[in-house]
């Protein structure tokens, strides 16, 4: 795009300066950056990328783009980049690589050759490309390059996978976000006046969109009418071409994003004769091997104006030309696209199935699911066993992408067909799948029934891997139903059979299930099997089982409130998954990580983690419960609104998800009732959960429930050994001992609440002060009311001065840290000075930088002076 009067881009010097600075950092300091460049369609993202990538002599760029296919090519833009890079990288890309493998190889290549990377139109990216981007964001700092990733942000819904990804990215100096603004009235004026067009009207219609402005200027007669829409402007410009030229435009328009010249040649009669005039008019551009529209907006405007009968003919020609030359397998997705538009169902089935298999191999699971659906739509005449297997493939890909409803629908069809085909092994295995999927959908009742049905069917057949897997699944389902003895029995059967037939997945899963059950039963043998399962999974390269084992290790630690171990295990799990194409697993465990942060008093971190779970459009129901509980408790303690919206949803989900989920929800609801002054409701909230909790060995959850009941004035006898130590102290009336234990464990809120209950006025006041320090406004108000009632006077409520009197809203601790940053101390020195761990100091430092909106420690000190934040140490 050349939206310029003197050959340069108008009003783009700011983003160009940022990009130039990042390029300096890459060239001089070997520090890489991932830049996200956003803006509405036609705002000039590509123009900016081009101007920047050619701004320095000797620096070249590798380009890749996503295309507007209904189902895009897996890893499309990265494969483009790899092909341009040639050599080892191109060889890897030709062989269905995983995102992780491709990103690893790309990083090596970029260290070697020092080039820029431009990835365009990520709003159309396939799932594998987004996974690759996630990995790239983690590594880019150590790679001497700038990766410029562009996307349209108009019409990008909150639940769009790219939006989800952008929300997950950390705030780091190596990740920069730029947003292009429309042209100002002054700029539009300048352009309009050169062409004798009334500027006010042009600005109003185009709202300063550079592409729209250029289209109008290119199409308009001197003093002519300004078209209503950008589409009208494009069509007006195209109307100036002759009939042959128009036909060439149509041909190129149906081949997104750009058509190869050989392809156009194969499709064309005499249309190529007008290529020159199309290029001269500026409607099309060529780069030597392909021809395309100057902008996707123009392509779509022309494509939509192609009459339907012409469109079918053109797609047919494209299909036959491409299939005749299909020496590259990557063309399956394109072929399927043209086959569908051409109405050739046999070709759709053939290419969509191929494209689906390829996408699955490259971990573009969402695209694989869509391709299998496309094959099924066109493949009604296929033999039943082929349809069944397509449904099975689609269901599996939907399962991997959290499209649970779709996975269930496809699996049901597959099971029906397998029964018709008298194939009990596959039918039985299908019921086992339906059980797992029902659990993910939060429907415990169906999950239990399908698990039983699978075992019944498969027990009639010779015992094999399917039955071992069905046993293992039923064991898990019994665990969710809190049936410990059932779990142990079925788990043992699963282990025995899986071991015998060599079904390693079922074996590791069953070992983990049995281990958890033994832990709940208070068996001393607990733990050993989990370790063995992890070793087995690592040895056999079963990535999902490794993730599950690490998760279980984390949860086991979390259940006994060993936060150090829990955080370490869960972080290791996230690390493991992020490097290995298990992209959504970290999201599954984010709820538990949030719980850990909440209990350790890191409330903002807890809210961030829980929010990522709740904002995910398709997360399976059981994973939502934990996140809802965290958010509900947080809101209740702070006195924020919408407490019951989250806790009611949690209860609803927990009721359908099996008894195991009920206790934490009940404890949270009891706390929220207490904070809201509705102590009379606590018995009802906890009765069912207490009955369950009495029946098994977890002294922590039992203690939590019983303590809330005691705080509500319910007087019941509790054996001190039946609950964990801090609860036993509080129930025994020793509030200070309880608080001291909580502090040792690392739970400041629990410690404060325990103190606040003490009959000793000084201890209670200390509890109140600690609650205020934590930002537990509602809890503090509740406690203050009780204390006043008891005759304790002079209680101070309200935000502390230190926080409210500094403009960046730093906490007292952050002010301490900032003071020491200003003194030039390193994190390890700050840690020693403030008696904190280095990790905690890291946490505070990044929070300080974030709040001050700066990227370095030096700048933080300057900013502190500018805002007159006191930087003398507070203590």
């Amino acid at each position, binding site marked *: 795009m050349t939206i310029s009067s003197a050959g340069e881009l108008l009003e783009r010097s700011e983003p160009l300066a940022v990009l130039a600075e990042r390029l300096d950092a890459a060239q001089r300091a070997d520090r890489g950056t991932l830049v996200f460049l956003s803006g509405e369609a036609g705002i000039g993202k590509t123009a900016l990328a081009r101007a920047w990538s050619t701004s320095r002599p000797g620096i070249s760029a590798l380009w890749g783009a996503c295309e507007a296919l209904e189902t895009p090519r897996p890893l499309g833009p990265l494969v483009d980049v790899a092909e341009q890079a040639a050599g080892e990288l191109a060889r890897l890309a030709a062989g269905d690589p995983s995102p992780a493998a491709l990103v690893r190889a790309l990083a090596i290549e970029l260290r070697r050759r020092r080039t820029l990377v431009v990835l365009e139109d990520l709003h159309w990216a396939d799932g594998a490309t987004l996974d690759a981007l996630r990995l790239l964001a983690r590594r880019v700092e150590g790679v001497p390059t700038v990766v410029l990733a562009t996307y349209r942000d108009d019409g990008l819904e909150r639940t769009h996978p790219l939006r989800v990804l952008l929300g997950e990215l950390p705030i780091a100096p190596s990740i920069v976000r730029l947003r292009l603004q429309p042209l100002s009235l002054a700029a539009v004026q300048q352009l309009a006046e050169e062409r004798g067009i009334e500027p006010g009207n042009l600005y109003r219609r185009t709202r300063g969109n550079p592409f729209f402005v250029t289209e109008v200027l290119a199409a308009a007669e001197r003093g002519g009418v300004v078209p209503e829409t950008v589409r009208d402007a494009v069509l007006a410009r195209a109307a100036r071409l002759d009939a042959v030229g128009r036909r060439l435009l149509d041909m190129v328009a149906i081949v997104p994003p750009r058509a190869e010249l050989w392809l156009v040649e194969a499709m064309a009669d005499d249309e190529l004769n007008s290529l020159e005039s199309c290029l001269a008019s500026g409607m099309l551009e060529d780069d030597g091997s392909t021809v395309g529209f100057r902008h996707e907006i123009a392509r779509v405007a022309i494509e939509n104006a192609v009459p339907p009968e012409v469109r079918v003919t053109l797609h047919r020609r494209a299909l036959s030309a491409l299939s005749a030359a299909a020496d590259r397998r990557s063309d399956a997705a394109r072929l399927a696209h043209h086959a569908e538009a051409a109405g050739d169902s046999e070709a759709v089935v053939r290419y969509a199935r191929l494209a689906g298999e390829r996408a699955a191999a490259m971990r573009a699971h969402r695209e694989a699911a869509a391709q299998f659906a496309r094959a099924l739509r066109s493949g009604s005449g296929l033999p039943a066993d082929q349809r069944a297997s397509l449904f099975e493939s689609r269901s599996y890909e939907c399962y991997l992408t959290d499209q649970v409803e779709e996975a269930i629908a496809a699996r049901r069809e597959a099971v029906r067909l397998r029964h018709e085909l008298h194939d009990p092994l596959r039918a039985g295995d299908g019921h086992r799948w339906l059980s797992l999927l029902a659990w993910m959908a939060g429907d415990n009742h169906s999950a239990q029934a399908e698990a039983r049905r699978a075992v019944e069917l498969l027990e009639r057949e010779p015992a094999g891997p399917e039955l071992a897997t069905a046993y293992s699944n039923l064991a898990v389902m019994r665990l969710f139903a809190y049936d410990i003895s059932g779990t142990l029995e079925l788990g043992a059967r699963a282990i025995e059979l899986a071991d015998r037939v060599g079904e390693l997945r079922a074996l590791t899963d069953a070992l983990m299930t049995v281990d958890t059950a033994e832990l709940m039963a208070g068996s001393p043998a607990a733990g050993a099997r989990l370790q063995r399962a992890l070793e087995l999974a690592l040895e056999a390269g079963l990535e999902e089982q490794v993730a599950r084992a690490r998760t279980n290790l984390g949860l086991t630690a979390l259940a006994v409130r060993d936060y150090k171990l829990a955080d370490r295990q869960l972080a290791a799990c996230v690390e493991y998954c992020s490097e290995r194409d298990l992209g959504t697993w970290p999201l599954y465990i984010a709820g538990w990580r949030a719980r850990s942060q909440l209990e350790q008093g890191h409330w903002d971190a807890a809210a961030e983690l829980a*929010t990522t779970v709740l904002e995910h459009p398709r997360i399976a129901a059981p994973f939502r419960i934990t996140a809802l509980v965290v958010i509900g408790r947080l809101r209740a303690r702070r*006195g924020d*609104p919408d407490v019951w919206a989250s806790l009611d949803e949690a209860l609803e989900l927990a009721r359908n998800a099996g008894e195991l989920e009920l206790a934490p929800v009940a404890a949270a609801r009891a706390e929220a009732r207490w904070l809201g002054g509705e102590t009379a409701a606590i018995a009802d909230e906890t009765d069912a959960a207490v009955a369950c909790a009495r029946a098994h060995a977890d002294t922590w959850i039992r203690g939590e429930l019983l303590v809330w009941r005691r705080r509500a004035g319910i007087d019941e006898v509790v054996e001190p050994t039946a609950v964990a130590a801090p609860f036993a102290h509080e129930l025994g009336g020793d509030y200070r001992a309880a608080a001291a234990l909580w502090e040792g464990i690392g739970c400041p809120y629990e410690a404060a609440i325990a103190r606040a209950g003490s009959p000793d006025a000084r201890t209670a006041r200390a509890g109140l002060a600690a609650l205020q320090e934590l930002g537990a406004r509602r809890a503090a108000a509740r406690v203050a009311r009780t204390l006043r009632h008891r005759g304790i006077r002079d209680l101070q409520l309200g935000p502390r001065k230190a926080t*409210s009197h500094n403009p960046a809203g730093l906490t007292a601790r952050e002010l301490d840290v900032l003071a020491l940053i200003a003194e030039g101390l390193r994190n390890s020195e700050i840690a020693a000075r403030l008696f904190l761990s280095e990790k905690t100091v890291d946490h505070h430092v990044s929070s300080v930088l974030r709040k001050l909106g700066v990227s370095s420690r030096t700048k933080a000190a300057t900013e502190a002076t500018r805002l007159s934040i006191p930087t003398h140490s507070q203590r």
Partner: protein
Amino acid sequence: MKEYGILRRRGWRSYTDLAAALERADRVARDQIPGDVRWIRSYLLDEDRGEAGTFCIYRAFSPEAIRRHAARAGLPVEEIIAVAGTLISSHDPQNPGGWLPGGVAQATQPTKEE
């Protein structure tokens, strides 16, 4: 999106500090967490000793989004209150016109989703 009121009593030592905070608030909402919160309007509170506070109306998907924005922009949050609807009096100088019974000029409920 839902509507929330946010009380920031005595958040700033001066109106100059407040102006800087507004600039940060705008920048954070636009660049760091686009689409998360939308600022609707604020009332400036006349506090003692030249200090400044605000009562703000925002739209957001959750109270956590309000807090996240505040934390990143360095704004204090004393209390967040969910807004159930708006009543505008016919005497309101900013009354957009029109009459409803009882001297109320306009009554709206915030839209649940946007």
